[in-house]
């Protein structure tokens, strides 16, 4: 094998870390603490506060402990390292400009000691002067409090810790009671433990992280040394699931003990503080203060390799037979096999995964781009484990914890990249470009850029009403938008505002946007756009038009609201006689769009002189009842109903109100593409009957019997079954406030209770799984088997489709990936404020209803849409 010594890379990386480090001295440590201190130092967790400390056997100060605590939490990305707003610490009189103290206060890791406070007229008390006493030695009980706080930040998802160390327990009557931790302490000097520290002393002792001193005393007011503090915090640090637990952790090996046996017959043993890789009389020693993990594989080239992971985030590759150091790669290794060394860029947090081969070649860098993903797919390169790296798209989001800057992260939470330094919002993705607004200078203006953050182009001069969604896209040849048409070039549209003397007019500029050789080309379609309406054409036999009204308030103080249309090139006035009021949400039986028109306003009658519904050609619709969505066509009174499709979408159809008219209706007397399309789609129809008030279904919409059903929540249909929630309290059962999920078999009429205790429901439409939030849990219902299982408690998630699901509790900073069973798995990113994320099934390529869940931001990619923020 050709050996590659990439020492230059290694040296560059190491020199960089040397140059960035603060000045250190050679320090004195106790033998028992040496390994923890050495590794803690190698992990670069030592802070500036210890720069001048040459003897780690001396007591640590409160400030130094806080620094180390912050260092651990920064390294594991459990606190926001920019969260140092002055408002939180300017009342501390003794913290100066120490970054770590400010960070600890800003992240509410410490409260400090209140010296003065004031209470306002509303009874709200505000601390006006406080101190941290950073230069005083920390007591053991205070160290325990801070250690538990650190532990909680690192480990708060472990339910057992909530249970064991929660502050409150509930009695038989459901009354919350404070747990008397002090009485649980078994130390002889338990009475001298401060009340505020009792829970922490109990927890740390119970976890074995702190022990008593001497004869069963905790000595709460005693002090701890620097090396004791480092050892304590390092043991807590290791709890965080970074990379891998160091081999042999917790194993005391006074005599040689086997740690693991590899498939190729090599064994890894531990003796003292050294790991050995052994076979056939050859033994390679790996000191545990240098190496954390060893991986051994017999490669396809016949050689046996050992990858030894260092604490300084590099990996040494050895020939396991000769013990020869072959290469050092500047990344973290987490496994090896016959062909590859599997690496990642960092041991914790969102990171990128990659591959090296045993020649030292970087097969896949521990970072990747969209083009790289394409390359991997097209060239059939072996990818790292699916669970770690899958080229399945990106999430674009504005990071509220970082000034709203735009980031992207792949669906595994890896390779997070900042792509804009602007404070961004309303992010959307169409046809390979991002569209977004910014705050600050150019507030509200529309910008676009490529997904890698390049080619930033400002599109609007004033406040922009956003790139108009898919419903407003039309192709340059005038054909309607088609999901399977990838060749045709779409026209996109956006509205730019007109402001004059501080007044924003309803008169707006409508621009058409196209791209020529990658450059945005915008063309002013009209400078007199009031409201914009949908594209009317429904099939390729018609030309697509974008309908709009002229403005009601114009810069020249005139007022109009007449109907116009454009195909993106020409603008036509449809009618300049009657004013347009608004569009109706429905179409006629033959697919015509409806809108309301209104006549001149009569001041005497305080009403419009006429108010009709017409189609776009101004054919008035007879006897239209816009509340019941009913009208008469050719003597038959029909009503417009929406049909619930299996994918959750709705299609529209019409049924005669008088069943005796059904035969005439079916004869084609009233024909139309919309009706035929709807009825041929499926035999089941589910609709709200506005005339009779209620939900109905029929398994034969062309004349079959219809059945009323009661599900107070909009149901979903999977096959011949309807699923939805019914709330007993709506029927007068005041004894319960929860909902019950029912299924209704539309063929047999059988109604079956699935589960109760439900508050909200969401659906995974392509996997036939329903997720429902209950008061405690989320249950998972498999539609195919009607089996209910419990998934992650209090998940508060919405699942649409598969396979990538996300979870983030309100206000949390972690965005977490869920596995197929809804269990939390990988942390995708840990500093994003997330409220909702929704997966849209592949191929839909459509913007979901932006108001449905009150979400503010949406990110749409070619095959998925995520709702964030």
């Amino acid at each position, binding site marked *: 094998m050709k*050996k590659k*010594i990439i*020492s*230059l890379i*290694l*040296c560059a990386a*190491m*020199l960089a*870390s*040397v140059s960035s*480090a603060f*000045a*250190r*001295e*050679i*320090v*004195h*440590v*106790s*033998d028992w603490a*040496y390994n923890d*201190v*050495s590794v803690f*130092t*190698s992990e670069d967790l030592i802070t500036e506060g210890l720069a001048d400390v*040459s003897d780690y*056997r001396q007591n640590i100060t409160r400030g130094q402990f806080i620094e180390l605590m912050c260092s651990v939490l920064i390294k594991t990305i459990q606190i926001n390292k920019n969260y140092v707003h002055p408002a939180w610490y300017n009342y501390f009189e003794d913290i100066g400009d120490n970054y770590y103290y400010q960070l600890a206060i800003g992240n509410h890791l410490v409260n400090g000691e209140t010296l003065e406070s004031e209470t306002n007229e509303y009874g709200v008390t505000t601390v006006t002067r406080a101190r941290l006493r950073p230069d005083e030695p920390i007591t053991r009980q205070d160290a325990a409090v801070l250690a538990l706080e650190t532990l909680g930040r690192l480990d708060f998802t472990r339910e057992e810790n909530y249970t064991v160390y929660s502050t409150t327990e509930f009695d038989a009557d459901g009354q919350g009671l404070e747990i008397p931790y002090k009485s649980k302490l078994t130390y002889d000097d338990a009475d001298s433990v401060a009340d505020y520290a009792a829970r922490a002393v109990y927890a740390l002792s119970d976890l074995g992280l702190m022990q008593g001193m001497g004869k069963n005393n905790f000595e709460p007011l005693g002090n701890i040394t620097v090396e004791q503090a480092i050892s304590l915090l390092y043991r807590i640090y290791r709890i965080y699931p970074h990379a891998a637990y160091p081999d042999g952790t917790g194993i005391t090996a006074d005599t040689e003990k086997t740690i693991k046996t590899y498939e190729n017959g090599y064994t890894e043993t531990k003796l003292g503080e050294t790991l050995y890789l052994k076979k056939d009389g050859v*033994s*390679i*020693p*790996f*000191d545990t*203060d*240098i190496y954390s993990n060893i991986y051994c594989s017999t490669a396809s080239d016949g050689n046996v390799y050992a990858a*030894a992971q*260092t604490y*300084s985030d590099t990996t*040494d590759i*050895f020939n396991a037979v*000769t*013990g*020869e*150091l072959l290469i*050092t790669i500047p990344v973290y290794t987490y496994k090896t096999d016959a062909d590859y060394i599997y690496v990642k860029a960092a041991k914790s947090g969102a990171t990128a995964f990659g591959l090296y081969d045993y020649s030292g070649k970087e097969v896949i860098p521990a970072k990747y781009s969209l083009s790289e993903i394409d390359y991997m797919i097209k060239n059939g390169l072996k990818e790292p484990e699916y669970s770690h790296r899958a080229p399945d798209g990106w999430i674009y989001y504005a990071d509220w914890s970082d000034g709203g800057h735009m980031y992207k992260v792949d669906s595994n939470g890896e390779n997070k990249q900042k792509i804009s330094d602007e404070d961004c919002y309303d992010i959307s993705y169409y046809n390979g470009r991002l569209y977004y607004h910014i705050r600050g200078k150019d507030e509200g203006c529309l910008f676009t850029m490529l997904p890698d953050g390049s080619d930033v182009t400002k599109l609007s001069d004033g406040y922009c009403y956003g790139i108009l969604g898919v419903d407003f896209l039309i192709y340059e040849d005038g054909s309607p938008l088609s999901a399977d048409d990838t060749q045709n070039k779409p026209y996109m549209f956006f509205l730019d505002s007109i402001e004059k003397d501080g007044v924003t007019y309803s008169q707006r500029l409508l621009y058409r946007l196209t791209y020529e050789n990658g450059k945005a080309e915008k063309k002013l379609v009209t400078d007199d756009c009031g409201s914009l309406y949908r594209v009317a054409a429904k099939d390729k036999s018609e030309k697509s038009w974008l309908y709009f009204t002229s403005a009601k308030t114009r810069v020249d103080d005139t007022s109009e609201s007449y109907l116009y249309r454009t195909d993106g090139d020409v603008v036509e006035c449809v009618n300049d006689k009657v004013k347009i009021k608004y569009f109706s949400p429905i179409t006629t039986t033959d697919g015509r769009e409806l809108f309301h028109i209104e006549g001149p306003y009569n001041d005497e009658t305080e009403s419009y002189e006429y108010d009709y519904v017409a189609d776009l050609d101004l054919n008035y619709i007879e006897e239209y009842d816009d509340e019941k969505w009913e009208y008469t066509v050719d003597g038959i009174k029909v009503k417009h109903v929406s049909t619930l499709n299996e994918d959750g979408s709705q299609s529209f159809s019409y049924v005669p109100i008088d069943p005796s008219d059904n035969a005439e209706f079916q004869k084609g007397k009233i024909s139309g593409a919309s009706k035929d399309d709807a009825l041929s789609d499926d035999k089941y129809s589910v609709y709200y009957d506005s005339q009779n008030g209620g939900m109905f279904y029929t398994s034969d919409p062309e004349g079959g019997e219809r059945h009323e059903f009661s599900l107070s929540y909009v149901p979903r249909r999977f096959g011949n079954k309807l699923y939805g929630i019914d709330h007993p309290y709506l029927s007068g059962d005041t004894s319960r406030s929860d909902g019950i999920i029912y299924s209704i078999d539309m063929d047999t009429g059988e109604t079956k209770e699935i589960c109760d205790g439900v508050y909200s429901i969401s659906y995974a439409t392509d996997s036939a799984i329903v997720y429902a939030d209950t008061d405690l849990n989320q249950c998972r219902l498999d539609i195919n088997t009607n089996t209910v299982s419990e998934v992650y408690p209090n998940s508060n998630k919405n699942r649409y489709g598969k396979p990538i699901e996300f979870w983030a509790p309100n206000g949390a900073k972690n965005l977490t990936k869920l596995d197929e069973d809804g269990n939390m798995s990988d942390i995708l990113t840990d500093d994003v404020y997330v409220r909702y994320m929704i997966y849209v099934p592949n191929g839909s390529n459509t913007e979901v209803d932006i108001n449905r869940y009150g979400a503010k931001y949406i990110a749409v990619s070619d095959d998925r849409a995520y709702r964030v923020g």
Partner: protein
Amino acid sequence: MKRKIFAALLIAALAAPAAAYAAPVSEGEFAALPLGTSKSDVHASLGNPETASVNGVKEVYRLTDGGKAVLIYSGGHTYFGFIVH
């Protein structure tokens, strides 16, 4: 860069962990060593270490009082060090 062959070192470490050629170093002499010193300068000043890790980034020195001291290298220069009691 000259290839590092650790096989000999490996055998030496296993067969004779307390190599005879490594003379003890006084604590004062060790503590006075400035961090950032190159490995060759360290060896010139303190002599050869008693043991070294397989990748050479750690060297252990025997102190005259019977204790031990550890140097950790980064990029060929001392990065940090410990006097272990």
